[in-house]
């Protein structure tokens, strides 16, 4: 498996080497000019390899791939969103965002950070579409409104709808990454009753879309996915919802620091109680970790500073499809039948259900009793 991967990667790099660069210099030249030592660079490559779940034998290949990566231009399109995903990207430190822009990717368009505006911005956009046709990496943030012809979002002096613009841009893309739950699954604006008919972008495109959900996804998951495309020249291995397995392969619950308490049946019963002081499991106050595929419990957020469960709040399931509807209420446990309907990784699910039913009998009973008490709820 590793050999095949290595082979694929090497082929990819050779392919990239043949492509015209966007500038006359390679990343390596630029790095040297900037006084970034080979050692620092390898250190970075090692951390990248580790993040992507690759063994240390891949480090030199990762480094080599990064050196040719400026041949892959990135265009970032904002649809119906809150800009949280871009903000999350801004927090990246391996590589840092300036490194990313100056050295690793060739960011053609991103309207939250680019200098140009108005006609000049439009010009940049069209130029990128023409010049890099077929090899643009398109990152989309935000859901796409489809109701009433998509009139809930327009762009530019000609008032093109978001729907048209997305379709047109996707034509020129070599890879499409849906950054955040909004572009992956529609997100908050698609929650019932979905007044704008917002959907995840894959619903309106006929090309493969790689979903990097999360509200927002961590900087690591965004950057990691972009780098995967660069390194392998292919889309990463994905689950049923097209999420890269390297980031979304496990449940939050699988690596949670409170897991021991879950298994021992020790729960926070109410926020602020002694269970909360002792770091007990948050399942009963609504934690959706057992249903949520993401790596927050391993990678955390903001350079490992914390994550919601550490801060005493349950996971709300933000990397799952339709979580705003499916996971509500966010501070109460879900009914067990939710598990039966979820359709992610089937085997993993079964394991999860077993664990939950064993350790969660008391909870299920509690829920059933409550329901009897107040059937109207």
């Amino acid at each position: 498996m590793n050999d095949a991967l290595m082979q694929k990667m090497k082929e990819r790099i050779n392919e990239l080497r043949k492509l015209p660069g966007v500038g006359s210099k390679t990343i390596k030249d630029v790095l040297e000019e900037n006084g970034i030592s080979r050692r620092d660079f390898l250190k970075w490559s090692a951390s990248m390899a580790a993040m992507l779940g690759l063994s240390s034998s891949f480090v030199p290949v990762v480094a080599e791939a990064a050196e040719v990566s400026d041949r892959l231009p990135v265009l970032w399109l904002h649809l119906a969103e809150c800009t949280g995903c871009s903000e999350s990207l801004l927090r990246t430190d391996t590589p840092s965002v300036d490194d990313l822009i100056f050295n690793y990717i060739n960011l053609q368009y991103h309207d939250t950070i680019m200098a140009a505006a108005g006609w000049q911005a439009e010009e940049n956009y069209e130029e990128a579409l023409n010049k890099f046709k077929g090899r643009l990496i398109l990152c989309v943030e935000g859901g796409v409104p489809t109701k009433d012809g998509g009139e809930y979002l327009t762009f530019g002096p000609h008032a093109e709808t978001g729907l048209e613009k997305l379709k047109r841009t996707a034509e020129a893309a070599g890879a499409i990454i849906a950054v955040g739950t909004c572009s992956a699954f529609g997100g908050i604006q698609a929650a019932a009753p979905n007044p704008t008919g917002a959907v995840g972008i894959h619903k309106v495109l006929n090309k493969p879309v790689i979903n990097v959900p999360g509200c927002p996804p961590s900087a690591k998951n965004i950057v990691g996915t972009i780098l995967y495309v660069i390194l392998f020249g292919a889309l990463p291995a994905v689950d049923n919802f097209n999420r890269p397995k390297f980031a979304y392969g496990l449940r939050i619950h699988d690596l949670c620091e409170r897991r021991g308490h879950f298994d021992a049946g020790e729960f926070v019963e109410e926020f602020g109680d002694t269970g909360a002081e002792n770091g007990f499991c948050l399942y009963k106050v609504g934690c959706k970790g057992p249903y949520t595929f993401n790596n927050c419990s391993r990678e955390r957020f903001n350079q490992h500073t914390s994550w919601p469960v550490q801060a005493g709040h349950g996971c709300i399931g933000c990397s799952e499809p339709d979580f705003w509807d499916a996971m509500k209420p966010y501070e109460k446990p879900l009914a067990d039948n939710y598990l039966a309907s979820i359709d992610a990784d089937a085997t993993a699910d079964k394991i999860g259900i077993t664990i939950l039913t064993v350790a969660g009998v008391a909870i299920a009973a509690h829920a059933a009793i409550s329901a009897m008490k107040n059937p109207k709820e």
Partner: protein
Amino acid sequence: MAKRVVIDPITRIEGHLRVEVVLDDNNKIVDAYSSSTLWRGIEVIVKGRDPRDAGFMTGRICGVCTYSHYKAGIVAVEDALGIEPPLNAKLVRTLLDYSLFYHDHIVHFYQLHALDWVDIFSALEADPIKASEEAFKYVPKGYNPIATGADELKEVQKRVASFAKKGDLGPFKNAYFGHKTMRFTPEQNLIALSHYLKNLEIQRIAAQAMAVFGGKNPHPQSLTVGGVTCIMDLQDPSRLGEYLTKFKQLAEWTNRAYYADIVMAAEAYRNEPSVTQKNNLGNYITYKTMQTGKNSFLFDACGYIKDFDLGKFYEIDESKIEEDVTHSWYKDTGFRHPYNGETIPEYTGYVDGESIDGKGDVVHTKVVNPKGKYSWIKSPRYNQEPMEVGPLACMVVNYAKGNERVRKVVDEFLAKTNLPVEALFTTLGRTAARMLQTKVIADYGIEAFNNLVENLKVDQSTVSPYKIDKNKEYKGRFIGDVPRGMLSHWCRIKNGVIENWQAVVPSTWNAGPVDGNGKKGAYEHNLIGMKIEDPTKPLEVIRNIHSYDPCIACAVHVMDVKGKKLGEFRVDPLYGSC
């Protein structure tokens, strides 16, 4: 002959915004229109749901001032249910606010606004040694500049030069560099460029500061109706220390870079009319924010001033806050208080027209219909008058009220820059006020932290208990200042679920279209009279609009469908009662 310039998209903001200006023969703006081009509908989505879920959903109104709407959504419900959270919880919320304000303001100035003031390529011609000496001129007394040593500046030049040589400028392509209204010398540009890059690192510290008690950033997750959930972090002294260290690093950056750069801008741009032209709208409104102790707030004014008059402070009467949609893409007439907000979307789009393109040619484009509806943003009014909100409003209204800390910081800045107090009412003043607000936090904000530590010695509580009575009707609101100005959320709860939710957000006050009385909001009003050097490169307009720190996704969440079925809200019978 009047010419029309359409700027769409306005980039380096949050959300989707179009601005149109009409120019006379001398390229003076005679009319202006602000139009938002996206609508998301979050309030209608919140309806029918568990009130305890609202904060998480309203939080997604904005991922930039992430936390503002989360807190507002939680506090509005607390207000409705009559819950008084423990002091610890209130103070932790303030600490989260600090990290948010730090983050928002420095990212706004350096990453979003700076490229309107700073010519990156001119910085390449600078003498780094001269620049490093010059940097000492701008810092406040007792501080040394940061990230401006000669060696450091040389590295910055080298880095940017080699990037430029690559032949593709990426995000800096097609900018307005070299524009006549850019006034920094090459040395000043170099100082600012170094800070632009350094701030990318500093903003991560601000985000981490939020994550310490917030769990993550963006979109923190440690608030709950009744209090906060981060009890373990509060009982862990090393966690408190982590926050404190980050707070201090941010305070340092504020003094040694942010403050200094604004002083530098004030000096370089004092003769640039497009940024020193006095605003046309002289009304400013703000609400108290950042609780620092049992009964103290860092910014304690809940009021407004009129016609630039700093001598007279008026208290707010909440019943006079209303919204109008005459020129917004919603059905309705007249002004409505947010508790009774009623709006049904009615998109009429843009109309065919002509405007000048980026080459100066007159071309067919879509343009706003000034007689009809032309924006997804509503027009909030106070007593039917337009008001400006934001850090400038916070500073001048607190100044008028006699908030001594604000007065001290503002007066010192005016003295250092040798500017009259009227200079506050300009594009430059608006940009400066955002920094001054940050400086007040840096200088005095630590009080909330100290009070929290004191209080934890005697009281460990983080959440107040409460009960929702399904047979009772509730209504409540949050009002407070967030990084972009006065924000309010208004909710009604019935049968245990949300019946109505309205958010009157800062950017609507500033960016809304003309109202039914023909009165324009701050963006439109304040642009009129400004002269443009080159209609194909309307940098002056962009700089002015950026000075408000536009947040448009936040401005266009608004909708309340009365009399319409809100969809089915499936309630699983297995969900336990509380």
